[in-house]
């Protein structure tokens, strides 16, 4: 079956611009997670959704970052006023429900010029 799908696979934009990254989880998975992976590092947790609500957003670095999941399926990670330090691979994962193994997408590579 289809895995976690993330679009776009690559995004290049200029400093100060607004970007949206999309995640389409595995069908039927109620839990959805966003992670950020900087060069040479392991992924770092950003936010977790159970259904439509953000159950834990403690990993969002500042208020320029925001994520939504309005219908409990697709999620969008939004970054305002992008900075060069935001350049990273943004990974999305989903699980059947909380506590179950997380399945990862291939990520979106974001480059801020």
């Amino acid at each position: 079956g289809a895995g976690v799908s993330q679009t776009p696979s690559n995004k290049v934009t200029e400093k100060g611009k607004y970007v949206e990254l999309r995640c389409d989880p595995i069908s039927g998975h109620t839990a959805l997670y966003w992670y950020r992976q900087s060069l040479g590092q392991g992924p770092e947790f950003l936010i977790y959704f159970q259904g439509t609500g953000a159950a834990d957003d403690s990993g969002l670095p500042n208020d320029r970052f925001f994520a939504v999941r309005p219908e409990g399926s697709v999620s969008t990670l939004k970054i305002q006023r992008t900075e060069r330090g935001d350049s990273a691979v943004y990974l999305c994962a989903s699980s059947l429900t909380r506590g179950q193994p997380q399945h990862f997408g291939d990520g979106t590579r974001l480059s801020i010029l």
Partner: protein
Amino acid sequence: AQSVTQPDIHITVSEGASLELRCNYSYGATPYLFWYVQSPGQGLQLLLKYFSGDTLVQGIKGFEAEFKRSQSSFNLRKPSVHWSDAAEYFCAVKSDRDDKIIFGKGTRLHILP
């Protein structure tokens, strides 16, 4: 706070040789432990997980890992590596109280022909 240490940034082994990748964790209670593999440009694939029970866990692709509470370790092993095993390997820990996974910085595995 939870943390994961992978002391080896790079490991090089010959094809057909045995492999052990080291992982140490810090967590107050019994952790949930994982090993993920990441090929270039790809997302993370779960190799194996430990939640409870038998401390020697078998995973996909011929990998296994052993949980040693006394050493706070969860080392990954494979008796004979293949060239296709060249990738980055991440050890990770999760508590039973929340859903964020804490990753180590990864070990890049190189295979000599």
